[in-house]
């Protein structure tokens, strides 16, 4: 198979570019040809040199170019809300770019100042696909945006960062500083600790003890501050978190260290505790970064949003100005282009159109709407260009209200079982009880001073460091493993809930079925002058009807060619017709007709994925119940259920979003898979909500897991991964409890020393680290 020169996609029909009287190519689509030509015109052909030997950063995709002017970017209102005024004549704005995938993209985007006038600088963040562009007074954001668009990177302006985001960035930097300081201090302390344990002479020993204390003070105060804070919050809420015993150890350890240094006693545990703080901070930081990586994907509120809309000018009804959908008002008259999404709720002012409601209601058949009918934001215009009057904007639209419900309910209904919190409750209680017993026991044998020292030592050495380390490490590994394979899991709590899944609820599209209608049973009844494939392609090429698109997709790989069509007519709801070589051809629900005689027949169906049945059977065998909740007709759902082996009373058709919500609310340990806005409430109320690839923004926000690869395989894998992860977590818990048990035995016998602590603590941490990284065999084989 040949692959496209521009995007490396496999080519179905090759396109070529005429460049310097030579044919260049092949390309997979016209979009890639356009970009290739644009790059050469600007003398940027080095893009291909850079691309040639650069590693792929993200999945590439063919370029889809839409003609937009981006004029809304220059509006006063827009600039004041989206751009930063850097100085009198410098402004900057952030854009999210679609289609960023490799080093060559980075090269090209950062060359913007060389070929677009008025651009001062352009800095791209590859990971987030976000570019910051600074312009001077000669530059215009609309011009830059359309330039980027022409190169195949569709830009979406990003709102200025809020106070919360700024605060978040400062916090993140503080965490890094804490890690840096604790790491440096712990490293230096270790040097003195080794010489102390090695038997430094008395004078040097005192000096080293003092230095250890000085170095460990910032670690045990500034660096460990987050632990104290979270422990305090837990205590105030009358619960115990893992940070409570950690804080107790750190504070007592610091106190004992200070007293001992001034009393001239060389015993202290400051070295072990400093290292512990460093390791804990590090492991928590890793867990947090990986979670944020996942979150940022589902936080892309601009993903499926229509940015620009055409609004009729109030003083001149023939002029439409381009504005950002954010600044719509009630009663605005808008022109909605074909294939665009409606940006607000409103009333249709044109005679008729067809609308794709599937994302909002779950119904897959397009609805026909007439003059005066209500339109909802989030639905797609499948007809020609239409006019609408806005009745409800942004938050008041049906979609906006759903979004608000999702955001308000966020976290309210979570029934989490935080395993570490659970364990640490018993753990802390046990440790405190033990130290009381130890204190009384030693008090009657050796007196008060010895009793106090031993009790405090017990509290210090039983610091649950391995426990606190192992859990984030294990989750961290699973989250990144899942992320690498296209499962984006929101956080560690989701993994715990995933592992407990008992009831799965599926929405039809994108999971069991392909989600796109496909042609099946294509039978040629009569041989004609022109090839049937050519006739279909010629007639349906311009069609936007799902059936038409399915037919075009069917004939394209069959190397169909375009013929000359005269008098082409497309009647919505009926079909298309036209003259080819003086013969009259029609495509309608009966099939393909030549002068009224059927020459070919076909079926168009949303077909079931090959692996659906197999996976559903495996899940059922695993004692997980599987239900289908769909907005489609009962008959359709029944047929689907039979085909994949789900019993009749687990099939529910014609469900409204509210009914889905109720249904899931009643069941326990539920997992919902869906994609449309109609699933958002259900996704949110379910213990785990999984949004599949191509899902709408609103359902992404309501869900806990996002699958970048459609199909049930990801759902099954995430459950298996979660179960295996919990196994590792439990294994680590046992390991760290064993180490703690050993130190308790030592303390009871009065033979513990700081040296022992300095050995046991790192060794136990190392054991859980290895255990987390190794995982389980099943986990390693999941993506082999």
């Amino acid at each position, binding site marked *: 198979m040949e692959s496209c020169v521009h995007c490396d996609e496999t080519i179905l029909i090759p396109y070529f570019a005429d460049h310097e009287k030579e044919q260049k190519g092949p390309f997979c689509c016209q979009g890639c040809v356009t970009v290739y030509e644009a790059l050469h015109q600007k003398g940027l052909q080095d893009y291909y*040199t*850079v691309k040639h030997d650069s590693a792929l950063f993200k999945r590439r995709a063919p370029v889809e170019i839409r003609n937009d002017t981006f004029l809304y970017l220059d509006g006063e209102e827009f600039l004041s809300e989206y751009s930063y005024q850097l100085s009198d004549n410098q402004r900057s704005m952030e854009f999210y770019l679609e289609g960023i995938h490799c080093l060559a993209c980075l090269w090209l985007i950062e060359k913007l100042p060389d070929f677009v006038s008025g651009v001062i600088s352009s800095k791209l963040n590859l990971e987030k696909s976000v570019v910051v562009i600074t312009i001077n007074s000669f530059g215009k954001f609309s011009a830059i945006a359309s330039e980027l668009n022409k190169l195949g990177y569709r830009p979406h302006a990003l709102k200025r960062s809020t106070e919360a985001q700024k605060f978040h960035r400062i916090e993140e930097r503080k965490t890094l500083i804490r890690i840096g300081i604790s790491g440096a201090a712990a490293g230096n302390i270790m040097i003195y600790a080794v010489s102390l344990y090695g038997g430094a002479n008395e004078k040097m020993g005192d000096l080293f003890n003092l*230095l250890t204390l000085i170095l460990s003070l910032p670690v045990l105060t500034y660096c460990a501050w987050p632990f104290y804070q979270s422990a305090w919050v837990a205590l105030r809420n009358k619960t115990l978190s893992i940070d409570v015993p950690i804080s107790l150890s750190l504070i007592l350890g610091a106190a004992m260290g200070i007293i001992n240094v001034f009393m001239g006693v060389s015993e202290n545990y400051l070295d072990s505790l400093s290292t512990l703080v460093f390791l804990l901070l590090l492991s928590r930081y890793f867990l947090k970064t990986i979670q944020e990586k996942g979150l940022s994907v589902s936080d892309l509120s601009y993903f499926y949003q229509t940015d620009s809309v055409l609004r009729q000018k109030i003083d001149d009804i023939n002029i439409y100005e381009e504005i950002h959908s954010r600044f719509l008002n009630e009663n605005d008259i808008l022109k909605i282009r074909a294939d665009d999404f409606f940006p607000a709720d409103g009333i249709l002012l044109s005679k008729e159109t067809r609308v794709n409601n599937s994302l909002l209601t779950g119904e897959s058949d397009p609805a026909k709407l007439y003059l005066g009918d209500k339109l909802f934001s989030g639905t797609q215009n499948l007809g020609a260009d239409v006019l609408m009057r806005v009745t409800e904007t942004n938050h008041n639209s049906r979609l906006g209200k759903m979004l608000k419900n999702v955001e308000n309910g966020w976290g309210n209904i979570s029934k989490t079982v935080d395993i570490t919190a659970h364990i640490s409750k018993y753990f802390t209680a046990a440790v405190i009880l033990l130290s009381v017993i130890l204190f009384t026991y030693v008090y009657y044998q050796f007196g008060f001073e010895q009793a106090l020292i031993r009790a405090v030592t017990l509290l210090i050495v039983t610091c649950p460091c391995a426990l606190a380390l192992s859990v984030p490490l294990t989750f961290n590994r699973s989250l990144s493993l899942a992320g690498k394979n296209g499962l984006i899991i929101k956080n560690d709590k989701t993994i715990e809930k995933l592992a407990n899944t008992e009831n799965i609820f599926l929405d039809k599209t994108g999971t069991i079925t392909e989600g796109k209608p496909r042609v099946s049973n294509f039978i040629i009844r009569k041989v004609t002058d022109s090839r049937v494939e050519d006739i279909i392609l010629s007639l349906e090429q311009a069609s936007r009807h799902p059936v038409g698109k399915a037919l075009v997709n069917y004939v394209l790989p069959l190397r169909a060619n375009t013929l000359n069509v005269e008098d082409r007519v497309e009647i919505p709801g009926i079909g298309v017709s036209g003259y080819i070589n003086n013969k009259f051809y029609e495509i309608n629900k009966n099939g393909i007709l030549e002068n009224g005689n059927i020459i070919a027949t076909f079926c168009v169906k949303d077909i079931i994925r090959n692996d659906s049945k197999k996976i559903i059977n495996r899940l059922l065998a695993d004692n997980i119940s599987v239900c289908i909740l769909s907005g489609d007709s009962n008959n359709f759902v029944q047929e689907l259920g039979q085909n994949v082996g789900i019993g009749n009373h687990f099939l529910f058709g014609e469900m409204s979003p509210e009914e889905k919500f109720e249904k899931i609310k009643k069941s326990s340990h539920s997992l919902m898979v869906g994609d449309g806005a109609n699933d958002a409430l259900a996704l949110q109320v379910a213990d785990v909500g999984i949004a599949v690839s191509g899902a709408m923004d609103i359902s992404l926000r309501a869900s806990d897991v996002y699958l970048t690869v459609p199909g049930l395989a990801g759902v099954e894998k995430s459950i298996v991964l979660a179960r295996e992860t919990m196994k590792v977590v439990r294994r680590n818990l046992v390991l760290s409890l064993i180490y703690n048990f050993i130190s308790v035995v030592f303390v009871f016998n009065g033979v513990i020393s700081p040296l022992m602590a300095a050995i046991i603590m790192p060794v136990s941490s190392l054991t859980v680290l290895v255990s987390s990284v190794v995982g389980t065999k099943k986990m390693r084989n999941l993506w082999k």
Partner: protein
Amino acid sequence: MEIMVILLPLALGLGLAFVFFFIWAVKRGQYDDLETPKHRMLIDEEVKLVNKRKKL
């Protein structure tokens, strides 16, 4: 052991210097984007030069 009088402050001073350097770098935003710079440095300077020559 007199050498310790020099070595100890030296070690501590060096450590401290690096900690301050690190804090300075973090505050300057050097650690905000850990992904792009490692790719950026792979772009050859030469490509840019060749390009400029062509323009002339």
